[in-house]
């Protein structure tokens, strides 16, 4: 049988270390499957188990502590033809726990061999997430206050499709590992082993004790029936085929002539849930339709349906530099929160500024021309106030006109939503006719 062992770099473990037998078992497993070396990659974690990649003649990636599964995932999705084998100690298991869980949930076709020897061998025998509470480890008393994890139990409940546990000295190890590699999906194999350099110096552990530990723990012998499902990579590619329309960028051509258009700066001051950003986009689209340059800067909090929402738009025949607000030509005051966020702006407004406010909104004193409307009275729902305000602007031919706004509405809204926007436009036109 073909061996993948790198004869020029023999293993360098402490005498009696179980890693030695796992190295041999893994080699035998790979040989029994006749894995092509150039389609096999060994991804290793940190610690003594992180030396594995140097002992084999296959592709190798040795990375950061706990992160081996992340590289393995990138490799496998980038090249689905690879056999990806990951070795990790109980240290890597602890620090990289989130990645183990993610890999179990995902079921990408990777093989994870956990070399559990109950402590951090390389750094001095400190306790790990698998150290028994009654063990003597290198972190003084700390392990006595915690309990060890059963990673196989965790892997099963996280959705792993193949979970096996055995002693690293098990004569069937190669068969268990081969079955794991052969399994199409995420396979977790936990081996229990002896760290003769550290752990067994203070704790009684022998091949038979290891075997007894395996027998005392819940048996894990491979396929997890209840978790069987399609392999992630195949499922991912299948879903991609269903999402195959490439979103082309939005472009808007010059369609309306608005002679002598002067630079406009429009501030829409509202609250989350009032579709302020949508209104901003409509204004921009309208400006683009008139052959202008536009920019839109939004200001909102991390809260989703609460807090202010402010959109500041510039429409200019020239290229736009500074995208913040300097001297608004139009202010739409639609909520107190929005106004509060920009309260300093009002003192700077010039008499030529067009301010539209709803009756319910309070604004600081200013010298601008202020139009007050009562959207409630006009039977316009709050989420439509911003759109209604744009209709008001278009009717007054402030910054935008109806031709521009209509192009924007048609482009941004379809079907029923477009019709309901037209309904709001009609309400505003009728209401304004009676003003």
């Amino acid at each position: 049988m073909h061996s993948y062992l790198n004869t020029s770099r023999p293993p360098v473990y402490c005498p009696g270390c179980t890693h030695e037998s796992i190295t041999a078992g893994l080699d035998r497993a790979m040989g029994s499957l006749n894995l092509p070396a150039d389609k096999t990659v060994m991804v290793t974690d940190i610690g003594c188990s992180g030396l594995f990649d140097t002992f084999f003649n296959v592709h190798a990636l040795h990375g950061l502590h706990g992160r081996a599964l992340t590289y393995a995932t990138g490799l496998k999705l980038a090249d689905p033809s690879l056999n990806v084998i990951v070795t990790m100690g109980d240290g890597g298991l602890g620090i990289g726990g989130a990645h183990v869980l993610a890999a179990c949930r995902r079921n990408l076709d990777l093989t994870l061999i956990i070399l559990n020897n109950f402590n951090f061998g390389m750094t001095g025998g400190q306790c790990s997430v698998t150290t028994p509470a009654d063990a003597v480890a290198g972190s003084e008393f700390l392990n006595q206050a915690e309990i060890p994890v059963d990673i196989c139990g965790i892997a099963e409940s996280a959705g792993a499709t193949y979970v096996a546990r055995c002693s690293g000295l098990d004569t069937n190890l190669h068969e268990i590992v081969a079955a794991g590699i052969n399994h199409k999906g995420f396979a977790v194999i936990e081996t229990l082993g002896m760290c003769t350099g550290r752990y067994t110096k203070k704790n009684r552990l022998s091949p038979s004790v290891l075997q007894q530990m395996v027998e005392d723990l819940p048996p894990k012998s491979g396929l997890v029936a209840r978790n069987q499902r399609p392999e992630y990579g195949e499922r991912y590619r299948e879903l991609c085929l269903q999402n195959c329309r490439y979103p082309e960028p939005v472009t808007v051509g010059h369609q309306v002539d608005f002679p002598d258009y002067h630079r406009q700066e429009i501030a829409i001051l509202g609250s989350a849930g009032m579709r302020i950003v949508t209104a901003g986009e409509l204004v921009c689209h309208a400006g683009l339709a008139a052959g202008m340059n536009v920019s839109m800067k939004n200001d909102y909090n991390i809260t989703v349906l609460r807090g202010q929402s402010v959109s500041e738009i510039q429409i200019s025949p020239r290229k736009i530099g500074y995208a913040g607000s300097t001297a608004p030509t139009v202010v739409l005051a639609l909520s107190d929160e929005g106004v509060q966020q920009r309260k300093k702006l009002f003192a700077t407004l010039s008499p030529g500024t067009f301010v539209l406010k709803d009756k319910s909104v309070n604004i600081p004193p200013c010298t601008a021309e202020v139009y007050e409307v009562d959207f409630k009275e006009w039977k316009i729902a709050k989420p439509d106030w911003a759109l209604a305000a744009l209709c008001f602007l278009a009717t007054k031919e402030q910054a935008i006109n109806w031709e521009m706004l209509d192009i924007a509405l048609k482009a941004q809204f379809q079907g029923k939503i477009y019709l309901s926007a037209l309904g709001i436009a009609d309400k505003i036109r009728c209401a304004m006719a009676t003003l």
Partner: protein
Amino acid sequence: MALSFMDGNEALARGAIAAGCNFFAGYPITPATTILSNMLKMLPPRGGVCLQGEDEIASMGYCIGASMAGKKALTATSGPGISLYSEQISFAIGGEIPLVIADVQRLGPSTGSATRGADSDIQFLQWGSTGGVPVIVLAPKDALDCYLLARHAFNYAEEFRCPVFIASNKEIGMTKESFDLESVTLPAVVERKAFSGVNYLPFAAEPDAAPPFLPIGGNTLVRQTSSTHGPDGYITNDPEVIAGSQERLRRKILDHVERITLYEEDIKPGSDTLIISYGVTVRAVADAVEILTEAGRPVSSLTLKSLWPVPEALLLEKAADFRRVVVVEMNLGQYVHEIRRVLGGGRVEFFGQMNGVLITPTQIMEVLCNA
């Protein structure tokens, strides 16, 4: 002529795809999230892979794995995510793994302000990794630049086999604007140089260059490691070998600064002041300069699009004839240290602001007029 209308994040995503990006992994974080959501829509139809990692560390790991399999990988985050990327960034530097990292900066420190912009991470991007090795950091000023610099970033990443950062800002990433995509002149796409000889040593290279690449999964066996390694990719303690590779990691970038230097200039005859800026602040600077020049007080400006490696020769050359140099940045003084180091402190003035709002043209004019 039809104008495109998109924010900087979408422009960056589109620029990356146009540069050949075929792998993305990221974790949601304001204000960078929409790069992830754009890539999720754009990559699958193009046969690419886009993942949402279980965290930032995983996202970087996915990109590293994919890049080692030969993919052109992008990730995107903001300052808190860069903190989590840090050790993976060090790996990508030491392992010479091509990657593009978009940092849509927000106001720090720490979780700071998720929806407020600042150029918070300008020193962090260079020094937030172990080993002190030079990296490449590009800074866009607007959405169009996000598109263009994504091309440059991928080209540099492939050529120099290193992580390349795009230091964007909330005020660019989430500001929508119109621009003419057809007006931009893009450099040709650069592909990773493949090894073509016999006896491949994954880290054998010219003393000032990145090693030729072969992917994991190809016919020739490849080794990658985050540990200090010799040309063969095995761990080494040999001081001479270590010194050689450390020197090469520096030289492969620093010997080629000129080619990595991207900038714009607006030199006005008769001006005695040069204003140096980068990022979104450039736009306020341009407005201020224009107003002052129209008012008969010409001011010159230099816009840096490459921040790291520091374009020292460019700074010395462009600043030579000016009595006064004013550096403006959207933080309390980060890059100004580099400029003072290169030009000497005497004539370099600084103006910065870190309060979640853009520096205005008026503020810049005040600084310029307060001579």
